[in-house]
């Protein structure tokens, strides 16, 4: 086990690194270190041994925290590149090629993709808008900051929820840059939705039938927005698209720590569930993700442009083709 991979795994476990893009980039940096220090053992070929090594790292990371869809796609890309290495390359050349491929992937599919998404999304923000966002998505944060830099006059409503309270981090960064923000809890979303003109959401992944797989609570916000006829814009890089189809939130999900929902940190007086945690008949369900049906989504903004949710399979088809040929 390479120390860099071990470190990243522990960071996932403790929750120091979270968010689709951050996890993917950290994983790739760790893999780059591992590839740099790698040397082919005697009697083995680089391609097969390295693939087996990477697979063992991946199983370790899964033990720490289940993979997100974006990480799954990224690993498929890496294995594909390893398998396509020409046999004539020497070990150092092969390693250098792999590392530059990984750098290219991070650059094109994550960093530049975010910039393209921001460029498209700010055209949909007008002066006088009230924008609502849920949780903390890195892309949505970049969009809001960029629109503010361009001088557009708008207000932001940040909706947050327990147990992660991720919205507070986003809120801090926005207020520091001078945006006027409102902070509220997801229980109040139907009250606040009357004033909202646009909803911007991030996504962990978008599935082939247009369903958006994102932090738990996103589906509620999208549904309420739909009921109030507020357009919902989901911002997601194309490498996070997946061929899977999911109809509800239960069939594929991740379970978080049940203690997190039974205890409220710092409020000892309302810890009514103290001592109840190990009961047989009580199941504390802390779901991490949920699935938002495509009817509630007005538009998906990707690095390929603004598309309706029904066009996701077209992008999956085109993207796979490009990624297999490159």
């Amino acid at each position, binding site marked *: 086990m390479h120390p860099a991979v071990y470190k990243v795994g522990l960071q996932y476990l403790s929750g120091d690194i979270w968010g689709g893009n951050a996890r993917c980039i950290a994983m790739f940096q760790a893999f780059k270190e591992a590839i740099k220090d790698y040397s082919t053992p005697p009697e083995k070929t680089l391609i097969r041994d390295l693939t087996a090594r990477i697979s063992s790292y991946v199983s370790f990371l899964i033990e720490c925290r289940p993979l997100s869809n974006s990480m799954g796609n990224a690993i498929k890309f890496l294995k594909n590149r390893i398998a396509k290495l020409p046999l004539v390359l020497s070990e150092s050349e092969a390693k250098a090629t792999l590392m530059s491929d990984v750098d290219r992937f991070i650059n094109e599919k994550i960093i530049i993709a975010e910039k393209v998404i921001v460029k498209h999304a700010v055209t*949909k923000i007008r002066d006088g808008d009230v924008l609502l966002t849920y949780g903390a998505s890195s892309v949505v944060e970049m969009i809001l900051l960029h629109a503010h830099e361009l001088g557009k006059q708008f207000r932001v409503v940040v909706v947050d929820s327990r147990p992660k309270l991720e919205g507070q981090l986003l809120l801090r960064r926005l207020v520091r840059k001078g945006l006027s923000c409102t902070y509220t809890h997801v229980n109040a979303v139907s009250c606040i939705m009357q004033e909202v003109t*646009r909803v911007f959401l991030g996504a962990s992944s978008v599935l082939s039938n247009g369903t958006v797989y994102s932090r738990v609570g996103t589906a509620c916000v999208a549904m309420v927005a739909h009921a109030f006829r507020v*357009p919902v*814009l989901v911002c997601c890089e194309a490498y996070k698209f997946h061929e899977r189809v999911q109809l509800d939130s239960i069939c594929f999900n991740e379970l978080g720590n049940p203690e997190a929902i039974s205890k409220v940190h710092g409020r000892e007086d309302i810890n009514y569930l103290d001592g109840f945690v190990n009961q047989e008949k009580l199941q504390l369900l802390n779901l991490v993700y949920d699935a938002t049906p495509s009817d509630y989504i*007005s*538009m998906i903004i990707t690095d*390929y*442009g*603004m*598309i*309706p949710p*029904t*066009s996701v399979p*077209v*992008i999956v088809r*085109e993207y796979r083709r490009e990624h297999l040929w490159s």
Partner: protein
Amino acid sequence: MWWRSASFILDGQQHQNDGVAPNPESALLSSPSMADSALNPKSNVSAYYQTRAAHHAVITSDWLAQAQAATDDGDSLGSEAQIGGKGEGSGKAFSVIDEFNNWRKQPDLAEAVAAIRALAAAIRKSEATTMMELEIELKKASDSLKSWDATSISLTAGCDLFMRYVTRTSALEYEDFNSAKSRLIERAEKFGEISCKARRIIAMLSQDFIFDGCTILVHGFSRVVLEVMKTAAENKKLFRVLCTKGRPDRTGLRFSNELAKLDVPVKLLIDSAVAYTMDEVDMVFFGADGVVESGGIINMMGTFQIALVAHSMNKPVYVAAESYKFARHYLLNQKDMAPALRPIDFGVPIPSKVEVETSGRDYTPPQYLTLLFTDLGVPTPSVISDELIQLYL
């Protein structure tokens, strides 16, 4: 044909105060297009609707005022026009617009098709010697056409699609310039022909959907829908048409005129009577000014209302649109697009404190549309984005 109203006087005074000097290069009535292009930069009125009005000879009051002012002006711009016509090497953009206006004068030709023909002519007449230069010239010509009327979706879409279609051949870099240029011209002509024939193809595809004894509701004067009706009448189908009156352009009256010539039973309704008559309607037909990426359409004001009523009463809504109208806009709601203002004559003077909603078009979201008839087939609205992705990526 001449619509006199009290506001004619008010409008006439207002526009003469603006001090517009149109170019009277020929007699008033034969070149409404030149007057329109002069009018365009001064008032906010969309040139697209002015052209439609001009083709169908609805003389609006401010056009009359312009025409009057034109007779008083000398032929100061006559010589200018001559110079512009001679200098082909110098004013390239000018001659594209000229060509465009020449094509546009035929009332049967859609604006985007005229633009496509003009761009094809621009390639043919170009004096460039390298591929790069030719592409740059073409881009400039296309930009000048688009800026001529920034509110027309089909014009922008048509120019963009032409550029993509024509420059898409990958083998262009490897051939010598002349054969590459002739290939470009070939593709351009082909695109022009496809666009011209688009209406016939749409008319043929839609015949299956018009059955004997059906009642069709139409809104707005769409030449494509007219073609569909003509073909159906030629195929001896028995159907009747309900036409909305389509204020303020009186499009319904003109459409019903055309249909009456074909011996198709027509009934005119006022715009507010649509919900009342929706029970007896079997299907609704619209044309489109533009089809956007979400699959929705931009069409004359009133389309969204009718689509909503039809949807709530479970009547199918069909849209007939040529494929060059597919645009890369994505609209979230009505106000998301650049407004195309249209002069609305209420027939009585409006008090100065009262605002008038002068937008000429609205956006109908895709969930209210059943099928789109295009020259590429009969898809549901969600396929538009697929087509655009395949073309642009």
